[in-house]
């Protein structure tokens, strides 16, 4: 393929329009934040919050209308836009929109009126979508850092709360440690091939002795760096602490958007840089790339064990948790394990299943953390299992919503979680990972126990202490109900989204 690195504003707009919108709106909001005083701190907070939401909605509209309809992979140096990226960008922006609307209510509940929150969120979303679109290993590193720096600050946003800062510092230390590994891997690949662009790397590697130890070390280090971000066992140590410490809405955002982006980039790096998904395209150079499949003999067994450990560890430790946020942190580790199954299967159904899973997981996870912040009132006011006892009759609406989201995460039909798990496991079985799929289904039974325990606490137990929560704002309620409807709709009629996800993953194999 001829890689044109020409530059024009029209091309920039059509490829990176969402990034441009997020970056510019972040910079504009910076000035709005300085000069706009507002009538009251609450007014000011919600104005800036809504402006951020509108910017993200514009970016989402641009992705869905313009970028999705690009029927080819378009490169502009470091970034590409094809349906695969467009899908993930849309997921990230959707998570961003939900998070920023929920944040308005969250910050008001906690009486925090510092509006830089939304700037950090806007820049974090910018970094995340740039990360998804990057096809250049160095750009992957830089955008990963832009994303992470925003998230570190958001995680530490409750400045007067020691847990929030403690979680954030742990995230920062371990996150930087992980990205140093990623960087070393990138530089080794650069040293071996002389290229940092993923597509060029694969074509150089295919003609070189790619089983050279240097390539294997580089591959391992890049995988480790990304696994830190996805929080796969044994690189998960930060996740529970950070998820518990951070503000609930931020937890929801980083459990979904960051994980979706990191998994997307993981698939892209493995499929485009080091893998043979390219055999369909019929061009001679791609047949050579098919040889790269031999690298799978090195990374697939490792990923097999990591997938197994992630599923078992996440689900088993979650059983022991009393704090619901921390329990969901372990559950999100387990979900990463299920998604790894889809990556490991590395067939069309696996990649489609992972994309579907990410979409469904994003909706139900942010929904669950949204309900947690509502039941919490103020952060850490009521978030243990004991606090949830008997709330089902006092707050029927919120309890029903969180029960629905938890049932969806447990993967029971008719919810989106079931369909996602179904595709991922089916893909793994189709690729011959029968044992792993069976063990995975076993762990998801363990998972159902602790999800349903929360539901049991809500409806079957008497309250031990009085919990009173402030009213739920209309915007929060709308987001939560929309998420609940989407979870059920996708569980009953998944066809639309599976078609979209399938079209998205096909672009990886057809056009790169």
């Amino acid at each position: 393929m001829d890689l044109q690195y020409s530059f024009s504003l029209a091309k920039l707009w059509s490829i990176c329009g969402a990034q441009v919108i997020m970056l510019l709106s972040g910079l504009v909001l910076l000035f709005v934040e300085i000069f706009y005083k507002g009538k009251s701190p609450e007014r000011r907070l919600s104005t800036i919050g809504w402006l951020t939401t509108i910017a993200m909605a514009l970016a989402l509209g641009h992705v869905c209308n313009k970028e999705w309809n690009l029927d080819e992979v378009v490169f502009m140096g470091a970034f590409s836009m094809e349906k695969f990226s467009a899908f993930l960008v849309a997921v990230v922006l959707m998570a961003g929109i939900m998070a920023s609307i929920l944040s308005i209510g969250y910050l008001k509940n906690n009486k925090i009126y510092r509006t830089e929150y939304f700037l950090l969120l806007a820049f974090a979303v910018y970094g995340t979508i740039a990360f998804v679109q990057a096809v250049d290993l160095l750009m992957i590193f830089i955008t990963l850092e832009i994303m992470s720096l925003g998230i570190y600050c958001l995680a530490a946003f409750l400045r007067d709360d020691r847990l929030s800062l403690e979680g954030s510092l742990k995230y920062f230390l371990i996150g930087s440690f992980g990205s140093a590994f990623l960087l070393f891997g990138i530089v080794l690949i650069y040293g071996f091939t002389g290229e940092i662009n993923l597509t060029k790397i694969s074509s150089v590697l295919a003609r070189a002795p790619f089983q050279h130890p240097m390539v294997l070390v580089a591959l391992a280090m890049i995988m480790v760096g990304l696994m830190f971000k996805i929080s796969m066992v044994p690189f998960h140590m930060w996740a529970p602490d950070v998820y518990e410490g951070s503000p609930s809405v931020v937890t929801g955002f980083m459990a979904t958007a960051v994980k979706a982006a990191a998994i997307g980039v993981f698939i892209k790096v493995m499929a485009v840089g080091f893998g043979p998904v390219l055999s369909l395209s019929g061009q001679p150079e791609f047949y050579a790339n098919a040889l790269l499949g031999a690298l799978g003999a090195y990374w697939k067994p490792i990923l097999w064990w990591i997938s197994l450990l992630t599923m078992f560890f996440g689900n088993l430790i979650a059983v022991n948790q009393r704090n619901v946020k921390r329990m969901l942190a372990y559950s999100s580790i387990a979900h990463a394990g299920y998604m790894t199954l889809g990556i490991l299967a590395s067939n069309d159904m696996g990649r489609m299943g992972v994309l579907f899973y990410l979409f469904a997981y994003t909706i139900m996870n942010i929904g669950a953390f949204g309900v947690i912040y509502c039941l919490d009132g103020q952060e850490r006011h009521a978030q243990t299992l004991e606090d949830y006892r008997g709330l089902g009759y006092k707050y029927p609406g919120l309890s029903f919503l969180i029960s629905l989201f938890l049932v969806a995460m447990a993967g029971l039909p008719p919810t989106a979680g079931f369909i996602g798990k179904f595709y991922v496991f089916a893909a793994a079985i189709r690729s011959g990972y029968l044992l792993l799929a069976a063990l995975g289904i076993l762990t998801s039974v363990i998972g159902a126990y602790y999800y349903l325990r929360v539901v049991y606490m809500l409806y079957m137990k008497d309250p031990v202490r009085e919990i009173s929560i402030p009213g739920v704002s209309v915007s929060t309620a709308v987001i939560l109900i929309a998420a609940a409807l989407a979870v059920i709709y996708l569980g009953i009629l998944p066809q639309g989204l599976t078609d979209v996800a399938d079209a998205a993953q096909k672009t990886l194999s057809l056009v790169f």
Partner: protein
Amino acid sequence: MAGLTEYVILSAILFGLGAIGFLTRRNALIMFMCIELMLNAVNLSLVAFAHFRVDLSGQVLVLFIFAVAAAEVAVGLAILIALFRHVKDVDITEYNLLKW
């Protein structure tokens, strides 16, 4: 004159020292420094590769990594100072409210 292999070995040793230091030291500031050591080890091998491949882009990338490392330290130290106000210690074993 040292060849490429020596440079790569040196940078791998520096990277390893940084990683070992990160894993064994308990002082948060020293852990920051260890991360910086790891990033600069990477820079060293990047410069060496770029020099021996006669490819200028590698040299340019080093500047990007510097910028990222600086931004990282700015954020990290800010978080550490905010936490220091609560804990009055930089020993990470004192940051133990969140566990299991």
